[in-house]
């Protein structure tokens, strides 16, 4: 498996945010994206997950069996954990997790039911007891940990996580680091944006820099810089 970004640039709101980013990840690689607030980490991750179009460059994804660079096929293999958790406060933790499990495995079911069971996953994030609590009753860090459990209940080779440890206490952060190491050790790929060091040895680093100068191409409607 190979996940390769070639010369990627991304625009947002009439501005170039990411300029010519390159990286190549193989089985078991981790990529840590760092940078100041507003430098474009989340933007990059969202584009990699397929939510934003690239202004330039492209992504290569090299699954043994399947279609190479069809973004729709790539998506199926990605777990995205953004700033928001995507859970409904009115439903219980079980209901929330069961939903995501049922919803995302339905079509993969020919590959057999993968991932852990809910109980195992919650055990992993050390929240076995909250299963029946409404999600809205959890504390911020517990909410985040439940979303991390969501990564475990369906198995996908690529994890794209955006500040996964925000709001976690020290113990849970360490737990998450272990999880990531396991994931990579099992041949998964990890892309994480973070301000706090995750502590994964041998991870590749990508420093995103804030663009303050005009890099062209922000928008078709921009006036050309000079002349013609």
């Amino acid at each position: 498996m190979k996940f390769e970004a070639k010369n990627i640039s991304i625009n947002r709101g009439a501005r170039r945010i990411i300029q010519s980013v390159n990286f190549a990840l193989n089985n078991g690689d981790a990529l840590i994206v760092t940078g100041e607030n507003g430098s474009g980490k989340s933007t990059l991750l969202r584009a990699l997950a397929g939510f934003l179009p690239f202004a330039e460059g492209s992504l290569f994804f090299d699954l043994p069996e399947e279609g190479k660079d069809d973004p729709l096929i790539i998506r199926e293999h990605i777990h995205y954990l953004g700033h928001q958790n995507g859970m409904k406060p009115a439903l219980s933790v079980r209901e929330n997790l069961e939903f995501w499990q049922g919803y995302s495995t339905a079509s993969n079911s020919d590959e057999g039911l993968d991932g852990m069971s809910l109980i195992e996953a919650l055990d992993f994030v050390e929240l076995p007891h909250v299963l029946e609590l409404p999600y809205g009753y959890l504390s911020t860090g517990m909410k985040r940990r439940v979303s991390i459990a969501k990564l475990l209940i369906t198995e996908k080779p690529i994890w794209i996580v955006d500040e996964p440890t925000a709001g976690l206490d020290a113990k849970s952060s360490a737990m998450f680091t272990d999880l990531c190491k396991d994931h990579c050790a099992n041949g998964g790929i990890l892309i994480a944006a973070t301000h706090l060091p995750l502590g994964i040895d041998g991870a590749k680093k990508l420093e995103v820099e804030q663009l303050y100068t005009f890099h062209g191409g922000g928008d078709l409607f921009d006036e050309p810089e000079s002349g013609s």
Partner: protein
Amino acid sequence: MRALLKRELNLALRAGSGALTGLLFFLAVITIFPFGIGPDLNALSRLAPAILWVGALLASLLGLERLFSQEREDGSLDLLVMQDHPLALSIFIKCLAHWLVTGLPLVLAVPLFGIMLNLSPIGIGAVMVTLLVGTPAITFIGAVGAAVTVSLPRGGLLIAILVLPLVIPVLIFGVSATNGALFDPDPFTSPFLILCALSLFTMVLGPLAASMMLRHSVE
């Protein structure tokens, strides 16, 4: 997909007051029209199908606003879009769930309200059948409106504006089919069939258009 339907229904029962607000509005409409028409019971029962239809139509607009905007705010929309299910299918299921908790109660409430409007049993049956067939179309058209305004925090009125002109055909054929069942010279079958066709048509096109829109709204 069953998972989605289950979640939606759970959510609606748990948190949503959509069904009740809809019914409340429906009741208000039914109560208010007899005042305009005056004491003439005949006139009232002639207009009853139209009143029930207009009331149901307007009531279905309530709650549409939240169909996608809430998913967007809590980040679920990202994940829904990302799955390999066809997004249109997920939207279809969401609409179905929405209809089950808002449209269906209206249909079921017709016998009660029909009596208040002095509608004959046949009339009640006809209104129920046409509403049963027609209200899904309203929901599916509404879904497009909801998708288009998903990023607006207060899109309720705007959705109504976008949706109302488009549901006019549904209203026309719904009312004329009902009148056809009730009053002799008017035909029932052909407007009813058109109504069914409209419903089926929007059932397919609505989710497709909405999914096209939603795909671009997650940025």
